[in-house]
Every structure is written in structure tokens, then in C-alpha cells.
């Protein structure tokens, strides 16, 4: 029992150990075929029309990229919400043409001397075309000004290091200055281990900025998407005036593996899903992607005083 306790604090981003979102991963169609048939076609991996077809990990439905994009990456058969990249999500919620990115140039440094950290960051930058795990900026939602931030899980599990913490903090401070609503879409494996204590302190920094925004009586809407865990859950993402969640997304503080190992108990069905959170009174609403923009607009209208 004591051994498991030593891991009590291991809710930081755990790479490749199952805290990622296998449930939601977008599988290119080639994953459907067994290797031999690929070889039989005389094709290499690179020759495949990667990403054109996607298989729903829940029901097996196969959708074409164009259709899936049009349906906001929701499975037409079972309503499964696929992982969304930041730019798509911004397009989905901001009034057309209103998004202006801020702090796009912030870049990670190796604050602790953690081996291979910067190489890792660079590889994710190349893979995703993003500089870091969150995109922030001004936008309008339902005609009202908001500062929004959207985390992108592809980037090192959208773990929170100094840059993510700084961008979230600046976004909140900007909203406080401009008397605007804050809308943050979370998806994160937690605090970024590679920046050690600096990552942990981002939890206090972002929450502190929210304290001032809160005292200024300004609206903050937190939207939890798959998966939101660890240090992000234990800071800005659970501090919304209103907390929304996407259907069936995973939300929690400690990873399910850690909980299981520590407690030696079987986890209840649906543990740490949006529906579980809803049942326990921890989120305001579960919102289907088709209704996200409208729900945000309605909320912001109610929460704005002018």
C-alpha cells in the first residue's frame, strides 16, 4: 500500500503509459488492413492516402475526412466525439473571421536541463505545426468579445509547462483588462514533467489570474474535452463559473491506473467520464459539439452585464 502512495503525485503527464486518449484517436484507414495486404500492394507507409478515412473507435463506422470535418468530427452513427485539433475547434466556436491569435511566438526553453526535452518539443512542433500545446486569442462568440484558449492534445499530451501556463495567464489577464469573457477548452495529460516544479507553479499562476478575473465579476466558461487530467484539472479547468464537458470525455485528477493501484478497488463503471462527473454534480452540462457554439453564446449573454 505504501508503495502505491509514493505514486500519489504521479498524475503529471504520463507519456505512453495509457493516460493518452486511445479511445479517441483518429485511425487512418490503413490501420484496418493487416500488414501483408499492404505489402501485397507494393506500397510503403508513405504512399498511403493517410488520414482520408477514419474508423470510429467506438462503433467501427468508417467516415471520410471531408464528411467527418463537416460533422465537427462527430461519428454519424454513434455520436462519438473524435479528437479535434485546435484550429478546427476555434473555427467551430468563434464567430467567422473574428479570431486573432495572441502570443503565438512563445516557445519552450529547457528550464531544468531535462535530457532530450527540447528535441522532444521540436519534434512535436514539426509534427503538429504548432509552437505549443495551446492556441490563444481574441474572438467574438455570439457577437460578444471573448478571449479563448484551446489546448491541442497532439502536442506532448497538451501537458502544461511554462509556455502553456504563460499563455493561459496572459489570455486571462487580457480578458480582465478588456472586461471580456474567458473560454478555455481543456485537454491535457496534466503538468509537464520535463519542466518539473516550473510546471507545477503554472497551476498557481493560472489560478491566480482567474482570481482577479473573478473579482472583476467577469465570466469564465471552462469546457472539458477528452482527456482532461492532472494539473490542468486541479487548476484552471475546474474553476469555471460554468463548466461544460463533451460527451464521454475522460476527466479526472489522478490517472485511473494510479487510482486502481492505490486503492486496490475495482473502478466503478464509467469512472472519470463526463457522465460520471455529471452524475456527481461536478459539471454543469454535457454539450454535444453541434450545440457548443450556441450554448456558449447563450451563456455569455446571460453572464454579461451590458
Amino acid at each position, binding site marked *: 500500500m505504501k508503495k502505491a502512495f509514493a505514486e500519489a503525485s504521479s498524475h503529471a503527464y504520463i*507519456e505512453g503509459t495509457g493516460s493518452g486518449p486511445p479511445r479517441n484517436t483518429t485511425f487512418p484507414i490503413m490501420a484496418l488492413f493487416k500488414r501483408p495486404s499492404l505489402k501485397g500492394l507494393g506500397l510503403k507507409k508513405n504512399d498511403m492516402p493517410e488520414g482520408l478515412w477514419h474508423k470510429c473507435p467506438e462503433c467501427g463506422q468508417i467516415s471520410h475526412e471531408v464528411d467527418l470535418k463537416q460533422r465537427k468530427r462527430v461519428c454519424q452513427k454513434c455520436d462519438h466525439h473524435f479528437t479535434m485539433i485546435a484550429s478546427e475547434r476555434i473555427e467551430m466556436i468563434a464567430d467567422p473571421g473574428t479570431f486573432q491569435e495572441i502570443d503565438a511566438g512563445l516557445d519552450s526553453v529547457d528550464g531544468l536541463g531535462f535530457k532530450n526535452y527540447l528535441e522532444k518539443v521540436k519534434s512535436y512542433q514539426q509534427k503538429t505545426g504548432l509552437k505549443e500545446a495551446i492556441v490563444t486569442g481574441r474572438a467574438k462568440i455570439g457577437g460578444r468579445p471573448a478571449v479563448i484558449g484551446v489546448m491541442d492534445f497532439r502536442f506532448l499530451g497538451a501537458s502544461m509547462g511554462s509556455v502553456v501556463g504563460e499563455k493561459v495567464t496572459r489570455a486571462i489577464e487580457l480578458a480582465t483588462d478588456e472586461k471580456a469573457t474567458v473560454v478555455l477548452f481543456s485537454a491535457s495529460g496534466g503538468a509537464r514533467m520535463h519542466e518539473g516544479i516550473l510546471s507545477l507553479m503554472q497551476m498557481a499562476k493560472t489560478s491566480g489570474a482567474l482570481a482577479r478575473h473573478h473579482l472583476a465579476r467577469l465570466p469564465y466558461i471552462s469546457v472539458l474535452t477528452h482527456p482532461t487530467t492532472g494539473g490542468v484539472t486541479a487548476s484552471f479547468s475546474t474553476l469555471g463559473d460554468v463548466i461544460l464537458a463533451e460527451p464521454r470525455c475522460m476527466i479526472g485528477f489522478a490517472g485511473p491506473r494510479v487510482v486502481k493501484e492505490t486503492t486496490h478497488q475495482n473502478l466503478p463503471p464509467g469512472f472519470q467520464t463526463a457522465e460520471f462527473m455529471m452524475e456527481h454534480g461536478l459539471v454543469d452540462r454535457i454539450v454535444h459539439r453541434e450545440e457548443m457554439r450556441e450554448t456558449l453564446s447563450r451563456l455569455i449573454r446571460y453572464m454579461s452585464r451590458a
Partner: protein
Amino acid sequence: MNTEPLDFEKPIFELERQLVDLRELSSSKNIDMDSEIRKIEEKITRTKEQTYRNLTAWQRVQIARHPQRPYTLDYVDRCFDDFLELHGDRHIGDDQSMPGGFADLEGRRCVVVGQQKGRNTKDNLLRNFGSAHPEGYRKALRLMRMGEKFGAAIVALIDTPGAYPGIGAEERNIAEAIAFNLREMMTMRVPIVAIVIGEGGSGGALGIGVADRVLMLENAYYSVISPEGCAAILWKDRKHAPEAANTLRITATDLKELDIIDEVIPEPLGGAHRDHVAASATLKTVLRRHLAELDAIGLDELLQLRYEKFRKFGKFKG
């Protein structure tokens, strides 16, 4: 204090045992062995200096987790007068892993909160090994708010392997309990001092750690992830915890260099567990000094400084 030696302390304990034998021999046989005794005493002093002045990060983690190390209530006992414990979060229960209440520090009214570990199985069942549930963080917040209301300074003693990763903790929103404390502590209109006295286990530590001054005992550690957890990820093997402890930069000296903490509080040679009285006396002196400094600052300025203190954390470019 009688304690089991940690692995790296075994040479010292062996020498100390030899010294006892020698003294016994000398007095029982009435032989003059003064020079031998002096030699071994010198060797003990040298070995201690060499060992304890050059502790590795991992050795400090072991000291921070030492079962004889003074815990929150030991410091409350020795540093404060008239401790009046208050219980419960007013909703679910009373989390005994996070005791708290009113206490006097040489006439300065305080609210003290902190995680408490147990020294034996029975105590640890009660204290949950120092891992608090949401109720603990909410009780701490309730008491801190009361401190704010009545102008009592807040002292948070941090000693936890982490917030409890359990089913009930998740159901009752441990994440929100911590997050809410982070937000609320930032704007409390009363001086706050947080001291990491043992283990500073990630969010569970930070959950009572937003303060005007953050201090650390010499052999305490403060980290985003346990060295074992980090080793399991980086090396796929918990045995590499010593390397992980180095890499993560979690010792008091590291964190002072990184400008995360304000001061390192020295411990008696070999660690606080070897001399509770001396360890408590030093902590008390340092705590009084910081509270006196904070009491001299106006509240608006204090809150501005507290905000800026945490606002500056992080390293990036662009």
C-alpha cells in the same frame, strides 16, 4: 533519538557502535583508551560531515520521508502556544490527514493548517499517510478564511506524498478542491507563510502552498511528480528514482536556485529527525522573522506582491 539508519548512514552508525563498545571496554576493564576513543570520535565527526554536507537529492528524499521526522503536529506543539484544533469541512467529514486550528506564535495569532502523517499503522490509517481527500483541502480553506476574517496570519505546513488518488476523492472533486484553494489563497487579505517540512508532493502540496513566503526545510523536497513516478516514465523502472530525483531538481537548494522558494531552513546535522527540539527552534525563529516582515506590509501591497511572486514563475522565450 533512536532511529534506524538509512542505507547511506550505516557507516556512521557502525562507528558509533564501535565507540560505545570501546567506552564500555575502557570503563569495565579500567584501561586508558582515551586516544583510541578520541580517534574514533574524530572519525565519526568527519564521516558525518562528509555524508551530511554532501547529501544527494535521493538521500534527502529518504530523510524527508523518515518515519521519525517531525510532522506537522510536532512543529505545532513545539513552536506554537495554545493550539486549538478545529475540525471538519462542514459538508462531508473531518479529514484527519489535514489538521488545523488557531495557534499563537509568540503572541501573533495564527491559523495553522498542514498535512499530518502517522508513525505507525494505526496512526497512518487515521492520517491516510498524509494524503488528504477533498474534505481536507476544504477544511483547510474554511479555517484559512476564518483566519482572514479575524486577522490571524496563515501558516501552512506541507508534508504530503500527494493528494489522495482514490475513487471517493475523484467523486468529490479533489481536483476542484485544490484548484479552488489556489485561486482563493491568492487573494486572502492576511499574511500567508507556507513551509515544506517534509514531502512536497505535487498538486497536493501546492493545494495549501500559495503564500507570501514559501520556505523549505533543508532536507524537504517539492516536486511535480514523485521521483519513483518519474523514473517509471523515463526509465520504465522505479529503481532509477535516484537519477530522477536529480533530474527533477526537487531539493530545497535547487528550488532556491530556481527562485521558487524564499529561504532554506537549516536542519540539525543528519536531519530534523535527529533533534526535534533544535529543528523546531530554528523553524520558529525563521517563521517569526517572516511573519514580522509580512505584518509590516500593507494588505493591498501584500496581495500585489503575492500575485507577482507567482506570476513570474516559468521559463520561456519569445
